[in-house]
């Protein structure tokens, strides 16, 4: 019996911070607010480190019971859900990523948000997000996970709409929330199916029951349905086709939020959930195939949109969608540990990219359009260096972190189906291209922002004046540097399959060991070379188009015409959705539900009932004449009737 | 003669005797009052008719009988006529349960000196007294005169209010003696304690507080000074009987004095031991003596009545009400509670 780790403290600490800042922060100074937020986020990180330090001495998986929650029914039909925490290798990885990156972004936010109104509100939300994310990660059953799942959605909604006076931010928040609801609906139905068939939501119990079932090799059975429904939930949360549309819009939130929630942690919850439910997916190959196809398509699809975006954060947003597609691809080919590996490295470099982008935006006074940047490397050298590391990492250049994880995924994809691999490599090329496009447009060439400076975001950093771009304060740069180091070395843990080996107890020995041995060393090296080549090609193309011959892109765009327009307009997906789903829904609601049901049936019923009551009362009120003697008359007559009735009934 | 015949004969004789005596007593109480008050005010009082004016009541009676009986216009006649009758009937009826002495024995038949002995004699007196209010109230109302109406209003309010105090003061006595029958109440007071003090309720039963309350309430009930507001001459021009004259007026007069005598009898019976007193001498004297003591006590009581009239001024109406509700009423209740506790303790 291992002594209690007090895992509950990890989510509880940020919750306490959120409560303090949320309830009393209005009266605090900015120093106090940031002090509280950093203390509790840091404390959570320290707890996570403590858990990691104790990790080797634990019996895994380690569960911790906190309190009774739901008890209903009895006997064989009992359904129990407790507040409990579940710790294994997967949880530990997520825990460290969430608390570590989260803590760094907290630090960064102090600098980034210093000038903003609602400072305490921001940190309260941020801490609240940490609480829900950690609840999600540490949950011991699906229901508790669902709390975290919904809670991070709430925090995301609050933070996207942080500048709620701006219309686009408010509607972006709503969009994120509503699209997520669609996914959550699938998730919930999956949970109901689990309760129906396994009578429990506890991970251990469900997985034990599931592992006794035979795999559904073909057809569409229970596990496939559950898997697909879980995938719907994951697609909503992790911005996969067809529910990815909210994530680009979510860039309306403050940049640290984009980094924390919409790049590093929350959007990976779907991946985590699929990986956590791998027992179910393992026995539902059809569902797994769907996951793989969705992931692959999303990766390619989002990457192509990323090419034509000019807003620095939009590029990163589509990049995130694309990278999440990679992760799902990995899960889809049952390479869960590769997916989680990429999740971790992606958290480092994408967090870094967003923070760097924030630093750039900060430097140029709130401008987000890359066409108005350029040549920033001499103004903001530290940001430039860290961003460069991150760009190399995401492009998959050796020996940066992204190389190892992406390579792992591509290798496993090749093994499963070369088509996946091919699309993956294509995507890697496109990724490299648009990332270097961003890099060149932002940091190289001449600064193009002077002539039009002053078009600053109303909520942006106008306070910094409109002079030359300037480096961010130290409090923002330190997290950048730390993340740059992690982006550089973070991939090394995967060398020689160490990371995979670490996670092996979770995902089972079979899948991983067999996989590594399946590919010969030569094939592996060839694959590596090809992906490196694709990355290099992307770099060269970007160099050519955006540094050497800056007039070329416009020409090419003119040449491509409609296709280019389609890409710029994100394939008109938002418009299609609006036509296909939103408008029919709104019109249908207006005509059928509002005019038809609400006004025609409900209101009409209420009004008719009231009218009827009034008419009856109009007739009956003459009885209530206000005259005492009339009342007495009714009473006497009624009394006579009662006496007659009693005599009739034989009461003496 | 059968015992029923004896009973009827005795009853008739007693009724006639009592009414005669009572009416005479009423007449001579008026004379007494005029005489005493006269002397208190350094006047002679009635002195022209007969020795010491003793025939004055007779002269008054003749005067009332032969005077013109005026009935003012606009009065409500049935009640205007009925009101004095109600008053005098109630006053005379209540005397019927008053015992005047021990029973006497005539030819072997024991005849109590009382028209009738009821279990609830005291209650009967209270009931009749309370019905007597109608005479005053209706007289005031039927006269169709504002003075009379005010007098009637005052009378009814005052009598209802003080009736409560009167009743409560009697309850103390009832607790001590444990009966509603006046005869039994008197018999419970015979004897002495500590050798010489008579066991009257006022002494032995410690009912002196109740006696005081009774005295006050009785003054108010009979509309006597200092509580004679219903007929206050200076304010209301004689109040409820302003419009009355001749024999009707005389009836109210008789009712008032009869009530005084009844109240005095009641006080004597309840508080002062009734006819109990030293009995000695020859048999005839022994028969007469109890009645003598009884009459003497009534006389003392009546004298106090007259004495107070000659001494005290009249209350204001709100003072009257405040005195009744805020002083006498709590006092009577306190007396009742203490008496009940003492009796409970003794038994």
């Amino acid at each position, binding site marked *: 019996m291992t002594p209690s780790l007090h895992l509950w403290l990890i989510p509880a600490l940020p919750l306490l911070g959120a409560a303090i800042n949320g309830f009393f922060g209005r009266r605090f100074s900015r120093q106090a607010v940031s002090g509280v937020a950093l203390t509790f986020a840091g404390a959570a990180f320290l707890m996570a480190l403590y858990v990691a330090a104790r990790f080797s001495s634990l019996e895994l998986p380690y569960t911790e019971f906190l309190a009774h929650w739901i008890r209903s029914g009895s006997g064989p039909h009992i359904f129990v859900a407790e507040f409990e925490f579940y710790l294994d290798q997967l949880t530990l990885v997520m825990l460290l990523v969430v608390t570590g990156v989260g803590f760094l972004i907290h630090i960064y936010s102090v600098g980034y948000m210093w000038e903003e109104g609602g400072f305490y509100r921001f940190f309260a939300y941020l801490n609240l997000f940490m609480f829900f994310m950690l609840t999600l990660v540490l949950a011991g059953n699906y229901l508790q996970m669902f709390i975290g799942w919904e809670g991070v959605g709430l925090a995301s909604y609050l933070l996207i709409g942080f500048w709620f006076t701006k219309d686009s931010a408010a509607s972006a928040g709503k969009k994120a929330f509503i699209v997520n609801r669609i996914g959550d609906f699938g998730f919930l139905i999956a949970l109901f199916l689990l309760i129906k068939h396994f009578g429990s939501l506890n991970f251990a119990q469900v997985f034990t029951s599931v592992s006794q079932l035979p795999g559904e090799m073909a057809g569409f059975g229970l596990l496939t349905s559950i898997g697909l429904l879980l995938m719907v939930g994951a697609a909503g949360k992790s911005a996969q086709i067809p529910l990815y549309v909210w994530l680009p819009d979510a860039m309306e939130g403050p940049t640290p939020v984009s980094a924390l929630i919409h790049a590093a942690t929350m959007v990976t919850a779907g991946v985590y959930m699929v990986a956590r439910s791998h027992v179910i997916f393992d026995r539902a190959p059809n569902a797994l195939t769907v996951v793989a196809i969705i992931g692959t398509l999303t990766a390619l699809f989002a990457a192509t949109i990323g090419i034509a975006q000019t807003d620095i954060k939009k590029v990163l947003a589509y990049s995130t969608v694309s990278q999440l597609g990679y992760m799902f691809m990995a899960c889809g080919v049952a390479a869960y540990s590769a997916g989680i590996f990429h999740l971790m490295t992606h958290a480092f470099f994408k967090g870094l990219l967003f923070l760097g982008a924030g630093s750039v935006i900060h430097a140029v006074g709130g401008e987000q359009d890359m066409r108005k940047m350029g040549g920033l490397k001499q103004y903001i050298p530290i940001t430039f260096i860290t961003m460069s590391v991150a760009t190399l990492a995401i492009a998959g250049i050796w020996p940066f972190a992204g190389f190892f994880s992406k390579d792992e995924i591509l290798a496993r994809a090749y093994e499963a189906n070369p088509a996946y691999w091919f699309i993956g490599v294509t995507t890697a090329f496109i990724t490299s291209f648009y990332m270097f496009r961003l890099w060149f447009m932002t940091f190289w060439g001449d600064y193009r922002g002077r002539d039009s400076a002053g078009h600053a975001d109303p909520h942006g950093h106008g306070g910094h004046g409109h002079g030359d771009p300037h480096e961010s304060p130290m409090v923002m740069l330190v997290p950048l540097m730390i993340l740059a180091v992690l982006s550089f070395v973070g991939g090394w843990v995967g060398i020689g399959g160490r990371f995979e080996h670490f996670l092996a107890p979770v995902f089972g020995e079979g899948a991983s060991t067999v996989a590594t041995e399946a590919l010969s060393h030569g094939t592996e090296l060839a694959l590596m070379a090809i992906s490196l080549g694709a990355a290099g090609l992307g770099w060269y193309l970007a160099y050519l188009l955006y540094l050497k011959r800056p007039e070329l892109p416009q020409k090419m765009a003119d040449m491509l015409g409609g296709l280019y327009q389609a890409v710029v307009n994100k394939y008109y997906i938002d418009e299609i959705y609006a036509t296909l789903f939103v408008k029919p829904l709104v019109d249908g609601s207006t005509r059928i539900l509002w005019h038809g049901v609400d006004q025609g049936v409900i209101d009409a019923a209420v009004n008719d009932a009231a009218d009827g009551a009034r008419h009856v009362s109009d007739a009956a009120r003459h009885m209530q004449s206000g005259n005492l003697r009339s009342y007495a008359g*009714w009473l*006497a*007559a009624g*009394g006579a009737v009662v*006496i007659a009735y009693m005599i009739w009934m034989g009461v003496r | 003669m059968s015992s029923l015949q004896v009973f009827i004969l005795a009853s008739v004789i007693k009724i006639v005797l009592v009414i005669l005596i009572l009416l005479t007593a009423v007449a001579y109480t008026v004379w007494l009052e005029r005489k005493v008050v006269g002397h208190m005010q350094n006047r002679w009082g009635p002195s022209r008719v007969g020795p010491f004016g003793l025939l004055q009541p007779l002269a008054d009676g003749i005067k009332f009988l032969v005077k013109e009986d005026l009935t003012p216009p606009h009065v409500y006649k049935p009640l205007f006529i009925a009101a004095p009758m109600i008053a005098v009937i109630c006053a005379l009826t209540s005397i019927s349960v008053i015992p005047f002495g021990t029973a006497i024995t005539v030819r072997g038949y024991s005849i109590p000196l009382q028209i009738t002995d*009821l279990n609830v004699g005291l*209650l009967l007196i209270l009931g009749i007294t*309370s019905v007597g209010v109608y005479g005053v109230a209706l007289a005031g*109302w039927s006269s169709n005169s504002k003075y009379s109406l005010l007098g009637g209003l005052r009378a009814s309010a005052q009598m209802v209010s003080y009736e409560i105090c009167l009743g409560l003061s009697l309850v103390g006595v009832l607790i001590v003696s444990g009966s509603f029958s006046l005869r039994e109440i008197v018999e419970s007071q015979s004897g002495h304690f500590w050798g010489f003090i008579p066991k009257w309720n006022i002494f032995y039963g410690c009912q002196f507080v109740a006696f005081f309350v009774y005295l006050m309430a009785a003054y108010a009930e009979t509309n006597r000074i200092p509580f004679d507001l219903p007929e206050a001459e200076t304010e209301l021009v004689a109040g409820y009987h302003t419009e009355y004259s001749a024999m009707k007026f005389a009836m109210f007069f008789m009712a008032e004095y009869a009530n005084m005598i009844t109240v005095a009898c009641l006080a004597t019976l309840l508080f002062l031991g009734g006819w109990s007193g030293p009995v000695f001498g020859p048999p005839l004297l022994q028969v007469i003596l109890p009645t003598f003591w009884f009459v003497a006590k009534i006389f003392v009581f009546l004298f106090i009545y007259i004495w107070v009239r000659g001494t005290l001024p009249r209350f204001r109406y709100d003072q009257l009400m405040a005195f009744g509700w805020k002083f006498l009423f709590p006092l009577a209740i306190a007396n009742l509670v203490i008496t009940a506790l003492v009796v409970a303790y003794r038994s």
Partner: protein
Amino acid sequence: MLHLVLFLVFAAICVAGAVNLLVQKHPISSALSLVVVMASLAVEYLLLGAEFVAAVQVIVYAGAVMVLFVFVIMLLNAGEEETTKGSRVALVLGVPGALAGGLLVAWVLIRHSGDKAVSLGALPGYPKTIGWLLFHEFLLPFEVTSILILIAILGAVFLAAKPETPPAPTGRKG
């Protein structure tokens, strides 16, 4: 025989008084008819042996309650009753209803009360026995009614008091 005669005589007075109450136009005449009814009812109680009830009937009803009525009639200077036609229901529905109800009850009483008769003073209600019952078996109701009386006194004082001035003496007749 005497019993029956007395009963009939006073019942006749009683009914006459009740009918007179209905017929009379002036409230004070109605009030006096009611006093007559109550007084004759007291005699009926005596015939039934309830002497204490009879005495209390006279003291409370005739002596206090009805005096209050007379007092209020005098105070408000109530005049003759006007015959307004405010309520058709009372005449059309109420009076026949009341008569029908009364007849039905009378029919049931005559059919079912049997031949049991009471002699004069059949069940003497001596004050002592009544008091004993009141303070033993009916102690709680007795105390409750005392509270009721207290509340009624307060209510009457409050209701009849003129709003601006302290309670007038007229309000204290509870």
